[in-house]
């Protein structure tokens, strides 16, 4: 049995576009975010992500888990790099101190000091914005991409019939196997399996993962016979495929594609010319060096 993503038909900005147009835009968006480190420019793409998220019309309770996961991930990455100040060493050589927080205690003669510097703060902020942009745009896709259109979308994006159909099935299988994994894990736990307490050497630890991986994999392969039969009965792959759904670009889809591609290419070109690099306000550079 297939489990589905939580797609629902909604009146929203993201769903008013053709899925092909949105996929192309999404890829351009990813490329744009990846090539920017300048916080000022990042705020612009951040605004775009925020606009898309807020107009998506997906209620908070449906997306809560996804957001909590991403939130934890984002904070983990940016906040801890901020504390240790080791993440951005490729981007700056000097650090300008805003304040040094010295702990009022010592642990075995080591006194923890937290250097709050301009560079670290701005690096953490840029990181926060970047990861948020990438993650939020990505998690919206399963909520807003009609499963009935997976196959035709990839086909019309230029993939061959069979590959497009395989992509379609991949997207459909992911939530199913996530559920299967959960069930398998519960079943093994009921038998006394403990993932949290993997002990022993490297080899025995690896072997202990088999009770999770093997049943899920083999069950998936065994279960595929039904799908294969169903496809064979409908003469899959005998002739060029026809698709029930049809996609037509509207003017707004073309605008979205052109805009996305233009911004991406422009950002890439400018970043090669040295723009959009890591930025801190010049006025803060008068602070003392670390």
């Amino acid at each position, binding site marked *: 049995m297939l489990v589905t993503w939580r797609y629902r038909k909604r009146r929203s900005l993201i769903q008013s576009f053709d899925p092909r147009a949105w996929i192309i835009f999404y890829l351009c968006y990813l*490329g744009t975010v*990846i090539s920017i480190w300048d916080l000022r420019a990042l705020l612009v793409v951040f605004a775009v992500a925020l606009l898309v998220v807020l107009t998506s019309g997906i209620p908070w309770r449906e997306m809560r888990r996804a957001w909590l996961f991403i939130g934890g991930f984002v904070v983990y990455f940016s906040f801890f790099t901020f504390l*240790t100040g080791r993440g951005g060493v490729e981007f700056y050589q000097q650090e300008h101190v805003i304040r040094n927080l010295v702990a009022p205690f010592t642990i075995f003669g080591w006194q923890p000091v937290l250097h709050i510097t301009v560079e670290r703060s701005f690096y953490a902020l840029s990181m926060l914005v970047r990861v948020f942009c990438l993650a939020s745009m990505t998690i919206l896709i399963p909520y807003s991409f009609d499963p009935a259109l997976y196959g035709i979308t990839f086909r019309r994006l230029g993939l061959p019939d069979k590959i497009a159909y395989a992509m379609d099935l*991949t997207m459909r299988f992911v939530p199913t*196997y996530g559920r299967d994994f959960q069930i398998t894990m519960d079943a093994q736990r009921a038998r006394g399996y403990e993932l949290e307490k993997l002990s022993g050497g490297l080899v025995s630890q690896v072997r202990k993962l088999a009770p999770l*991986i093997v049943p899920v994999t083999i069950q998936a392969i065994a279960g595929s016979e039904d799908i294969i039969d169903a496809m064979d009965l409908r003469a*899959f792959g005998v002739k060029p495929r026809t698709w029930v759904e049809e996609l037509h670009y509207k003017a707004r889809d073309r605008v979205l594609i052109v805009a996305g591609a233009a911004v991406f290419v422009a950002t890439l070109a400018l970043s090669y010319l040295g723009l959009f690099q890591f930025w801190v306000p010049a006025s803060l550079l008068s602070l003392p060096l670390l």
Partner: protein
Amino acid sequence: MDRKFFNLGLTLVIVFLFFLLVVWIGGNVLGIERLQTGERPVLRFVFVAVGIVLALAVYWFTKENKAWEVGTREVVYMAIGAALYAVFSYLFNGTVFVVPSVSQVALRPAICIPMFFGYAFGPVVGFFTGAVGNMVGDALTGFGVYPQWSVGNGLIGLIAGMAMLFPDKKKSLNTVLIIGAVLTAIATLFYFLFRNTPNTLFFDVANNIFGDQPISVLAGLSIVVGFILVVIVRFAFGANIDVAAAVTWGMLGNLIGLGFAAISDIWINGYPPAVAIVGEFLPSAGPNLIFAAILVPILVVAYAALQRQTGR
């Protein structure tokens, strides 16, 4: 079909040459510094093209072989493999379940999926499983997209599936083992020459940063450990040729696929060759070999039992 294939190959080669020309003219002749060193996201796509051209070249020379046929069955297996790989790499990446790491050797059990699917269902299924599965898995995690690593993962599955191209499985095994031994030896040599290279893949929890500490002895030698395990499995299960072949071909795929991705980082991220090989290739390929040697045989045996049961 052939015409289309030729056009695709030609397009990829032209794209590749174009970028090569841009980098060469811009970087070396005109001396534009930004085209010489440092992060070059555009080059990622060049290496994607290179990887796909490699895959197409293998296909071109052996296209008469039945292993390349894609029917209903293969389409479904491609999707299953990719989805499983995505789910497992998402679950075991350290944020959902904390999989223990032993002395900097991060455990990435998902890697057995493309190897097994490649070996059991052929090179096309293997390539799709590795490449698409890695892409979807990265998207689920929110890591962003690293297309050249996706293609590298695809090559793992493709090469694991090349076992099917040889009618006599036993004969090819020794050649594969020797190639694997040579690659392992070269990588280990690099390790002994550049022992202080940081391990770029190790996520140091205490300091919360990637690539901080010099590579540990176990991480550096994990490739040797993995290779020895593969050899042990090869000869201990010599009677069950499927297990032996799956493990050896998986090993070769892992070495070449990840080697491709790591070496491409020399140009993409501007790493020195020593960092690419010791800091990236060893800590990723070594532990993967250990998984190949342990989990792939279990999967192969379980699948054989399933085949007996269902008669397929």
